[in-house]
Each structure stands twice: as structure tokens, then as C-alpha cells.
């Protein structure tokens, strides 16, 4: 039936176009093909039911205790909740203005969501551990395939800048990123629990409950991210500052380490790059003067009523000028909005950069160097942490991550000297009611 219809239509079209070409010689514009009817109906059903607001504590509960039965409960949860969320994302994309939807980057993203949705929504129920093992591997690949969603959409939005307001785009991206965080949380929690069950006899007692670490040590994460960022910085700029950790370095709290890693990596990248560039600007790149360190001060939750762990990343990277302060949390597309790399935002190290790897590396450095850093970071981080890095999303995304469980991220600047980034993260054992 469908085949006949489309054949009929295309026959009509080609007849019409043939006729027109013969008569008038101009091109006809075709609207894109609509989606497959079956999937469309399934998507509508799923999108109509809002996702169950799950709390982090219940997600963690699948692992307390972790048994084959609880793992299978977890997988059935995954199979019902993730499609719902993907359907809502797909729906959101479909409701963007038509002209935006025809942009190839947006269309590509929509297709990716639709495909993943279809895969999960039509997956046969998982009833054995074997089936789960297979499913988990496939789920892993699925999550991986969505790695570039945000940069792709951002590129699309950049090209569509004249069809939507910066506020609309910003809101959309905020929603997309939050949704992505949720989906990954649910998926990765399940994947982690599956692995733990498999290896349960080998692992001793652990403070980890899937992806939640009840005794996450910020100092340890800082050291790890610091080493990584340091190598990157040395490789591209030739030098890197040291990190000094003070405050209460022994503090631990309950959190999702991968979120903390993301936030720290982005914030440290900014701090390191600003410090080195500012140092070079003042003293030249061959100076032997010591590069000022980046100081991270850790402060434990002051009371049970305020279950926030705070830390402050302080650098001497020259700070952010007052005119740029308004822009540092906006997504790349909101500045200039041109795809030409000649549009120098000129906002210094923290300014939003253009999508596509061209980094606005202060005044005076050649475009080539800037691009190199951007490309390398994106390639280097492709392995571990995604390609978003190096594209100017570090701050707005870090802030979204920090706010995800009710925390906050703020930046204060001493223009001409350096910046302080204050991060407050809510311990997730206290906020077990944090909805995902």
C-alpha cells in the first residue's frame, strides 16, 4: 500500500517535473519524505507519555542488592524509560521550524534519535542474563553512536541562526543536553551494574553503586583530570601550570564521578589555557619566569542541612573582561553566528568559540595555532570524553552538569588578573530524591 502510494506520487512528481522542465526549465522544491507510518505511531505513543520521573536513589536501588533478578528489573526499566526520553527528543526536533528541520545536521540528528528509538522500542523483552549481556553490548554501542549529537545540532543551529532566536536555540540545547545526561545516566547505570554482576566474585566490597561512588574524592579526580589537561596543554602550548590543591583535600562525597570529571576537565582546560596564554603575553613564550599555578580549594559540606560540596578553581589567567562576561555561558552559535573563521570574537580564552574547531585563542596568535589546539583537543578527547571539548561549550555544559543534581557553577573575574570558578555539587546520597 505504502509502496504503491509513494510510487504513484513519485510518478506524478516526475511527470510534473518532466512537464515543467520541458515547459519552463526551473527546479521544483520537494519536501522531505515523511517518516515510516509504523514508527511514527510508536513514537507518538511514547512521546505522549511523559517519562517517569525517576530518582537517583531508585536507580541506585537496582544495585542494592545486586542480583540477577534486580538486574533484569533494571533492564526492563531501561527498555521502557529510555525510549520515552528519546521519543520526546525526537518530537522536540520535529517541532522545530520546518526550515530548521531541513538542515542536514538537524535532519541527521533527528534520524539518529528515531533510529535509536526504533531499536529500543521494538527490542524483544530481555529475560535471561545472556540476553542481557547481548543487550548491554548493543546499548553501549547505541550510547556511543550519539556521542556527537550536541556538536552536530550546534553546527546545525549555527547555520540556522537567522531562523531562530539565540534564546530559543539556547533553551533547546539546554533541554537536549539535560535529556542526554538522563539517558546516559540510566543507560550507563545499567551497563555498570551488568558488569559488576558478571565480575562480582572478583571485586571486593566497593563504595561504588554502579555509576555512583559513595566516596568520590574530588582531590583524586582533580589530579587525574589535571594530568590529562596538563599533557594536552604542554603538547599544544608548550607549557602548563601546576595544580595546587588546598582546603580540605581529604573530603569525599557521594556523586557520579564521570560528571565531576567532565566539569573539572572543562574548567581546568580554561584555566590552564588562560594562564599560559596570559603568561606568554606578559613575558614572552621563552621566558623562564615560573607560570603561576592553578589553585583548587576544596570545601566539605558545612552542615547536614547544606549537603553541598564546594570547590573553587582559581587562576591567574588574566580574567574575563566585563563585556565578555555576558557571553561566557552562551553556546558558540550565539556569538557572531558566522561560519567564517575570520570572525574573531576577540573575547580571549574563555569566550565562546565557533563550532568546528576554530578556537579563538586571544589576540596575536595565528589562526593556524588556534585551530591546531582546537583540533587536537577534539581529537584527543574523542577517546575519553567526547568531542564537545575545544568547541567553546565547556562552561555552559559544565554548568548544566553541575545544576543537574541541584548544584551550581559560577565564574567571577578580576579583569586583568585571573578568574575564579565556584562549583557547588550536591551530594547524591542526601539528595536521593533528585529526579533525573
Amino acid at each position, binding site marked *: 500500500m505504502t509502496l504503491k502510494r509513494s510510487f504513484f506520487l513519485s510518478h506524478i512528481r516526475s511527470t510534473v517535473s518532466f512537464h515543467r522542465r520541458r515547459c519552463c526549465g526551473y527546479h521544483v522544491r520537494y519536501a522531505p519524505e515523511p517518516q515510516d507510518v509504523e514508527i511514527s505511531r510508536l513514537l507518538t505513543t511514547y512521546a505522549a507519555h511523559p517519562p517517569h520521573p525517576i530518582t537517583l536513589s531508585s536507580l541506585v536501588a537496582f544495585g542494592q542488592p545486586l542480583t540477577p533478578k534486580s538486574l533484569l528489573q533494571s533492564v526492563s526499566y531501561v527498555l521502557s524509560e529510555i525510549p520515552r526520553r528519546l521519543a520526546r527528543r525526537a518530537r522536540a526536533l520535529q517541532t522545530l521550524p520546518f526550515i530548521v528541520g531541513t538542515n542536514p545536521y538537524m535532519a541527521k540528528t533527528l534520524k539518529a534519535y528515531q533510529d535509536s528509538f526504533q531499536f529500543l522500542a521494538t527490542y524483544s523483552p530481555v529475560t535471561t542474563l545472556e540476553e542481557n549481556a547481548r543487550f548491554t553490548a548493543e546499548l553501549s554501542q547505541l550510547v556511543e553512536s550519539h556521542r556527537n549529537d550536541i556538536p552536530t545540532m550546534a553546527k546545525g543551529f549555527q547555520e540556522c541562526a537567522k531562523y531562530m532566536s539565540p534564546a530559543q536555540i539556547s533553551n533547546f540545547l539546554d533541554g537536549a543536553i539535560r535529556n542526554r545526561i538522563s539517558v546516559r545516566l540510566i543507560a550507563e547505570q545499567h551497563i555498570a551494574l551488568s558488569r559488576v554482576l558478571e565480575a562480582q566474585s572478583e571485586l571486593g566490597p566497593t563504595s561504588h553503586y554502579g555509576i555512583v561512588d559513595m566516596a568520590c574524592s574530588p582531590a583524586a579526580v582533580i589530579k587525574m583530570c589535571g594530568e590529562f589537561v596538563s599533557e594536552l596543554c604542554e603538547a599544544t602550548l608548550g607549557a602548563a601550570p601546576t595544580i595546587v590543591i588546598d582546603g580540605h583535600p581529604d573530603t569525599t562525597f557521594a556523586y557520579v564521578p564521570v560528571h565531576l570529571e567532565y566539569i573539572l576537565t572543562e574548567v581546568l582546560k580554561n584555566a590552564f589555557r588562560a594562564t599560559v596564554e596570559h603568561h606568554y603575553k606578559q613575558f614572552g613564550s621563552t621566558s623562564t619566569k615560573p607560570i603561576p599555578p592553578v589553585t583548587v*580549594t576544596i570545601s566539605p559540606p*558545612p552542615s547536614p542541612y547544606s549537603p553541598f560540596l*564546594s*570547590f573553587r578553581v582559581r587562576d591567574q589567567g588574566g580574567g574575563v573582561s566585563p563585556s565578555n562576561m555576558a557571553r561566557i555561558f552562551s553556546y558558540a552559535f550565539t556569538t557572531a553566528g558566522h561560519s567564517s573563521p575570520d570572525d574573531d570574537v576577540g573575547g580571549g580564552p574563555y569566550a565562546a568559540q565557533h563550532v568546528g574547531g576554530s578556537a579563538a585563542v586571544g589576540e596575536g596568535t595565528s589562526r593556524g595555532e588556534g585551530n591546531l589546539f582546537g583540533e587536537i583537543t577534539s581529537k584527543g578527547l574523542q577517546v575519553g570524553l567526547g568531542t564537545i571539548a575545544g568547541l567553546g561549550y565547556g562552561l555552559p555544559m559544565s554548568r548544566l552538569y553541575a545544576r543537574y543534581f541541584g548544584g551550581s557553577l559560577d565564574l567571577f573575574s578580576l*579583569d586583568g*588578573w585571573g578568574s575564579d570558578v565556584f562549583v557547588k555539587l550536591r551530594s547524591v546520597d542526601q539528595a536521593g530524591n533528585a529526579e533525573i
Partner: protein
Amino acid sequence: MQRATCSSSPGDVRRSVTTALHFYQNRQLDLYASKQAHRLSLRQLVFFGRHMNEERLIKSANYVRTELPVRIAHRIRDLQALPYVIVTQPDVAKVYELYWSAFEKFRRFPPITNLSDNSKFCDFLETLLDEHAPVIPSLSLGLSLCSPLLPPESLDSFMNRMLISRISRRVLAEHHLALSMSLGRDSLNSEDPHVGIISTALDVKRSIVKCAYLLRSRPHGIENDNGKVIPNRGWPEVVVEGQLDTKFAYIREHLEYILFELLKNAMRATGLKHWHDTTLPPIYVTVVAGKDDVGIRLSDQGGGLSSNSIQSPSDLFSFSHTRNATRIDKRRIRALRRASSKGVKATVAEQVVEEDGHNARDPERGAGIAPHQRMGLGLPMSNIFATYFGGSLQLVSLDGWGTDAYLQLPKLGTNLEGIEV
């Protein structure tokens, strides 16, 4: 003029007669209040002050003489617009009456035609400035007590208008007094070059060091949150870093007040938090000069600002008890009441005393800071001073560790056009 007809005591009769008179005689006020305030840009003030001679001084005197009553009239109208029950509250009423008296006196002051007239005018200004010293604590006290009667935004916006206007009037008056004093003297080539009250090369580090020194010379003893004075072993050091030779054009009194109050808070918090420790972590003050402004960051390890009384550090600038519960704290109220008889001018100088406890005649040589109870005025006044010329003050807390205060002040030498007094 109506007479009270119901039976009442003579005092009541007089009062109701007076208030009726008050109502009908408001016409004078309406006249002045309907005039626009004639603002001068700071550039004009400075330029005017640089080329001072007798004729210009007289002009300046008459400008002050005619401008101030207009601004006072506006504030009286603001007070008259407040709910009746608030202005009849004794402390607010006192402020209202002070404003009226100032208005009447200015209105009646004859035009100034020569230096001798100016001298009388300067004496008049000085007396008035002193008379009005109780305004800040009385208004603060009265409004805090009336806080339940006004929504927080109205209360804060009223207080801010009053205090900002007060600063503007004082700046004009004190600038004129300073110009009068330096007539004939080359004030730009002195050790402390200035034009009126604007220092043209204010040394930031020097001001920080001076405030730190005054505060650290205080006797040891901190009032804790329960009002008890606990002995401390000393005061923390203040380490200044950054661009140490930063100098800019600003009003010294304003800068030093803000620094003084912020350092005072930082020292108290540090002392309380580390009471049990053998050494006190220092307070770091970083100074940076930008193109158009100066940035100063004070960083302490006093434990931060999280408390049950406020939701965010900016609540500390509010006069409303709904945003800052300490406004109706009994101790604060008592301290404000005590201060409202002597007055609070919001300067460092008034806090410096001689050995015998009396106000130092020369604050530069006073013996030290008089102990006083906490009134809760330091932060809101600092915020108003900081924002007055378009700067900013932000407090950020690293809960459990310490507080960072970011002060940004515009250089008064540049961009003077947009700044009006």
C-alpha cells in the same frame, strides 16, 4: 486651621493642630519637589574644581545652596509616600523632622555673594552634616522595625534611594567645603593630589595597609553570634598582592570605608573560625588596574557566609527582615538605637578614637578603633558606596571555607561623562 473638637489632652490637641498645619503647608515643599534635580557630571565637578577662584567658589556655593533643598524635597516626598504608620514610628519620624528642618534652613539661607558669606555657608553646611548623622542608624532602625509592613523590594528600593541621595548631597557639600579650604592652595601638587574631595592619585595599597593597620590595632576580643565577647589571640595578617602600584582617581573616604568594613568582617570571621588554631590564615587582597576600573578581591578563610538568616550572600545588602533575618535581631536593634543618638556618618574617621575614647580630632593620628556593637550597616553601606559611581560589590561564599569579596570601582578620571552626582 482646624481645632480638635473631641475631648483630649493638650498634647494631643497640639499634635493634631500641628499635623493639620503640616498638611496645608506642604505647598512650599511641592514647589521644590516639582523641580528637577540638576545633576552635574563628575567631569564638570572636577574641571570646575581645577580652576578654582573666588568667583567660581561663589558660584559653587550657590549651586549647592539651591540644589540641595530640591533633592531634600524629593526625599521628603518619598517619606510622605510611605505608609502613614511607618512615618509615625518614632525613629522614622525623627528622620522626617530632620529632613524638614534641613529643608527649611536651606530655603531660608540668603544667596552668597562674597567669601565671607561663603565662610558662613560652610559653617552652616558643617553643622547640618553633623546634625544629620543620626539619619542612617535611625532610618535603618525604624525601617527594620517596620519591615513586616512593607514588601522587601519596596523597603530596599526606598532605603537605597534615601542613601544614594544622601551620598550625592554629602559629596556636593563636602566637595564644596574642600574647595573652599584649598582656595589659593595648589592642591594638585601636594603629597596627596586632589581636587576637592576627589583624590587624583589614590594609592590603593596604601589605603588597604592603613585600614588593616587600624583594624589590627584593636584590642583583642570578638563578639560572637551570641553577643559574647570572646578573647582572640590576635588579628589575621593582610597580604596585598597583584599590581601594587595601582593609583586612580577616586574619593578616598568612600574607598577606605568599603575596604575597612570588608576587612573588618573578614577578620572577625577568620578569628571566629580559627579561634582554636595557633595561627590565623591571612587575608589576601589582590589589586588589579583595568583600563576603566580598578578591581580589588578580598579573600578570607573565615568559613563562608552560609547561615540560617539568609539564602544568598546578596541578602546581606537588604534591609528587609524577610531577606535577612538578622535585621530584627534584638542585639542589632539595640546597637542601632544606641548609635542613633550619636549618629553614623559611614566613614572610617568617625570610628577612630583618641586614647580617652573620644572621637579623634585627627583620624590620621587617632589611637585606634573604638569597640562598638555590630549594627549591620557595613555591608549595605559598602554596597551603596560601591555602586554609587557605577561600580559593584559581589560577595561569594565557599561554604565551609571562606568568602571572596569582589570590588570593582570605576576610575573617575576616565569616562567621567556618564557619571553624575
